[in-house]
């Protein structure tokens, strides 16, 4: 199985170290874009930690996902600086254009929409990111263009 093989490679890198489970889970998240059930089970037995502890960690930190996410991740910043400059309207527009709500993934798995609290470019608020691209001074009209024009569909 692909999941297991790749997960094993990651776990091996950390020498099955129980104390490195957070790093292992982060790497698994990075590898697959989410943390598959199969990987969790494998890590539990390979590092001898309880499944319950792993799920405890996975559900505590907001950056772990237990189901697959979209190919493109659209993050709308709603941090204080962005909030003051009307970020909620950007979020509403993104929800409308993509027809999904905050935290959801579109049916074709092209987009995942996420509301985040500050990504550190507050001087250019309101801010939106798609994958690794950062956009400043975003208006609802521009969000529409960003989503549609940027060739994020390939």
């Amino acid at each position, binding site marked *: 199985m692909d999941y297991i093989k790749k997960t094993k490679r990651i776990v091996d890198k950390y020498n099955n170290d129980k104390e*490195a489970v957070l790093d292992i889970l982060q790497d698994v998240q990075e590898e697959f874009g989410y943390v598959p059930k199969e990987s969790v089970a494998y890590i539990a037995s390979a590092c001898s930690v309880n499944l319950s502890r792993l799920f405890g960690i996975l559900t505590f930190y907001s950056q772990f996902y237990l189901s697959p996410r979209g190919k493109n991740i659209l993050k709308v910043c709603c941090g204080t600086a962005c909030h003051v400059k009307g970020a909620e309207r950007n979020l509403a527009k993104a929800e409308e254009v993509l027809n999904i709500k905050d935290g959801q993934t579109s049916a074709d798995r092209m987009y995942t929409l996420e509301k985040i609290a500050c990504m550190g470019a*507050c001087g250019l608020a309101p801010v939106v990111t798609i994958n690794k691209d*950062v956009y400043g001074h975003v208006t609802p009209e521009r969000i529409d263009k960003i989503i549609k024009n940027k060739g994020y569909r390939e």
Partner: protein
Amino acid sequence: MNKEKIKVFIGMATCGRAAGAQAVLDAAKYEIAQKQLAIEIIETGCIGMCSKEVLLDVVLPGKSRVTYGNVTPQDVPVIFSEHIEKGLPVKKLIVGQLPVDSKINYEQIACYGSLPFMAKQKRQIIKRCGEINPEKIDDYLAFAGYKALSKVLKMSPEAIIKEIEDSQLRGRGGGGFLTGLKWSICASAQSEIKYMICNADEGDPGAFMDRSLLESDPHSVIEGIIIGCFAIGAAEGYIYIRSEYPLAVERLKIAIKQAEERGFLGKNILGSGFNCNLKIKKGSGAFVCGEETALMASIEGRRGMPRPRPPFPAEVGLWGKPTNINNVETFANVPLIILEGGKTYAQTGTLKSKGTKIFALTGKVNNTGMIEVPMGITIREIVFDIGQGIADNKKFKAVQIGGPSGGCLGHTNLDTPIDYDSLTQAGAIMGSGGCVVMDEDTCMVDIARYFMDFIQNESCGKCVPCRIGSKRMLEILTRICQGDGREKDLVLLEELANNVKALSLCGLGKTSANPILSTLRYFKDEYIAHIKEKRCPAKACKKLIQYRVVALNCKTCSLCVKVCSSNAIEGGAKGVAAFILDGKCVSCGACFEKCPHNAIVVTDANDFLRDKETQL
């Protein structure tokens, strides 16, 4: 002939990239390739002028550095052909010049020091930001980099700590604990193994100083950490950084590797026999992990939940060993203190707050950006001198300092000096340095609700007052914003806030009520307007406002009809004035902003109803 190359600097930190720095960089590279010019491009970090991004600087050999602002890819060919080829700076894009050896080369261009944004700053910690290439250790070395480290390796740990104590440096991560005292407690702990942690979690939404520092000048932070390790006797350090900052992580990795290669990190540092290793740990998206005990739990691979103190980390810390934890900016102060001496450092500032503080100035001011100011400067100077006042000719209402643990200060506090104790007294806190300016369009009840929403989401759930208290406070604030507030709500809110403050386990809960208490203190009238009159004075709470068209002003251009995503506007074309359907309108305000003829106005929802009744 001067053999020095022409240099072009482009700010490539996260904020620069957000403004489109990559396209400007590509345009510059294209220009160089096309014209086969011998020009060196230097990708720098952030100089702090966010509102002027993308920034591009040109240095002709032996001449001042000229900074261009708001540069687009289309401007690049002009700058190249005029300035670089003919030596004539392009006036309309110029921000200022930075003279070399105080020689002013260009007559009519303002010098950096005289720009309003710069004049009241004291840039001693961020002085290299935007000047050097953060990915090249030699750039840092050229600016006295790692000199402080070589100096301390010949000193005794006690002498180093004495120097820090003399500087009276207080932690920049929020609490403001004396750094020298913290180090001396940890240094005197008896243990073979000790740890040093750098807190780069920076969870406060609206703050980005630590990110900027790490992206623009990572070596200064690393040097501070190594000095700290030497002083307390730790051979291992961790930098805990939030994963929302990929570029900062990348640059830290590069910097650590370079420091190892040059012998500033690793075994037998600079031949002193002192060993020290640094590791990066990435967070996984939990605000509470910025709290020191939660942070250590997270490094240990557990859920990031705080625990009661004492025992303090200096006694029982990471993996049970004595641990010292400081903020990024605190560490960045250390090399400077060592180089100029603690006593000299302490000459800047107020009686109990020494040195400078870096702020992220954001929100509705004209000049947003990262600024470094001497302690004791007033809020007025920050907002109106450095920030150049409120954008769009609006009126100043408040400034939020300290993030979710801080508070909103209004007009009456404009002359409050920035120092730990004055800010606490005023109901805010120094915090990590977020400084969000708000104008008349910002509703203070909504801001309190916004922060409580944040806290309620981020509460780890371990202690009841914070978990349940934040939820209840959020419910009350939400109903006030929706016009369902009750007369007794304010009393209830204040009582809850004080209880949560007194009973919570960690700083998250203890300070969570500050946004409410400070807005209640300075902006109570807004709460009362929401509750008694069902009216939002700032016209921001959607349930309490109504948009409508002033038919006389409508030019039937139909822009509003096109921009409305709820199909709530009829008419607006062919000479028929637009008309907003109340049933469909969701009060998003898009038409209001789009209308070029001021034909759309926003009114209180209850006025609207009253008007309608009288019309009938």
